[in-house]
């Protein structure tokens, strides 16, 4: 099986994986980072969002062998102020979509530290939440630095 190297959360991982394995699957099953969730496996829901060089990317439709950049998963954001902001705002119910939400939100506030509500709604629209925590997520992002 072909080899590849991934840089994830500043750590280097050397793996073997078949061509065709998704980055999400490689992260979860080989690297052992299960914070990134797979909910649809076809790029429709955003639960699998990771950052590649800071850019929110759907890891379930990214080929592990085609990644050329630094990967940041939710595990790499565990100390980000957004985590506390999400907890305070009650922006989590079942929590399955939440890691992806935080990853997208972290990229948003990195680019735009005081986002407007319209910006938030536009940039977070690719992260589906079935439980409907959206108003809480908005609040968390608006007040992430409080």
């Amino acid at each position, binding site marked *: 099986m072909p080899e590849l190297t991934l840089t994830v959360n500043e750590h280097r991982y050397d793996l073997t994986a078949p061509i065709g394995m998704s980055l999400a699957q490689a992260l979860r099953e080989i690297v052992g980072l299960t914070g990134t969730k797979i909910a649809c496996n076809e790029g429709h829901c955003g639960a699998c969002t990771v950052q590649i060089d800071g850019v929110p990317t*759907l890891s379930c439709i990214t*080929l592990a062998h*085609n990644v050329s950049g630094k990967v940041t998963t939710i595990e790499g954001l565990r100390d980000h102020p957004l985590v506390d902001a999400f907890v305070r705002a009650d922006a989590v119910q079942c929590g399955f979509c939440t890691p992806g939400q935080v990853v997208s939100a972290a990229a948003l506030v990195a680019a735009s530290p005081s986002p407007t509500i319209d910006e938030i709604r536009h940039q977070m629209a690719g992260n589906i939440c079935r439980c409907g925590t959206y108003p809480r997520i908005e609040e968390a992002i608006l007040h992430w630095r409080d």
Partner: protein
Amino acid sequence: MELLRPSSVAELDGGLPIHGGTEVVPLLRDGILHADKLVDVRGIVPSGVRGDRIGAGTTLAELEADATVPEALREACRLAASPQLRNMGSVGGNLLQSTRCWYWRLKYPCRLHGGDRCHAREGEHREHAIFANDFCASAHPSDVAAALLALDARLHTTRRELPLADLYRLPNEASRELTTLEPGELLLELALPAVESSVYLKAMDRQRWSFPQVGVAAARVAGEVRVALAGVAPVPWLLDGPGALDAATPLPRTAWKVDVARALVRRALDRV
């Protein structure tokens, strides 16, 4: 499966090209596309905006953010897909994306799959075409293609230079292809003429992350107004005059799209 990464066009030697992968990866997984060899073309397809030239590898997110890009194209990108997909997907890939028709995606033996029926025509077709829907009623889902068609964009490939309209063709008995791309031909660059004004209006059934029910792009180019629609025909659809919508051939459950198109075309023409 092999994954190759050529560093020049000269190195291309068959295989299935992949750029952002947002189309190719799911279709491979579904068994609609087949490949023993994947070719990562990110090293050879130009990307970025340089004056009136747009590299086919430019992502939708980059176009959305670029103030030098005409409004219709920026807005089409802004309203397309999801933020993550805009980050990943190239404009070239977006032009070549396949229909969302559920029969096609579920691999019914329909016309586009080489069969002899259009299951949508006789079945569930409420999201399907209002033009050119006799042979195949699928709808083309690209907002960006409609915008570029209205903007009268020209396309440079590894083989030729052509108006964007000539990239597309309607399927027929002889060939079920929806593009005129030859095997191994890659999109490289788009060239836009000077645009005086342009607009893109999109009807969706949720506020974001939804393919166009009807998308209307209008552009004033060299004094002339061009109007192109997404979501209404198997290919992006250039309206050839004000009465064009009267010539629509809706199916029983797509008649509503004609009403929506009328309203959006009127509004787009007011704005442009």
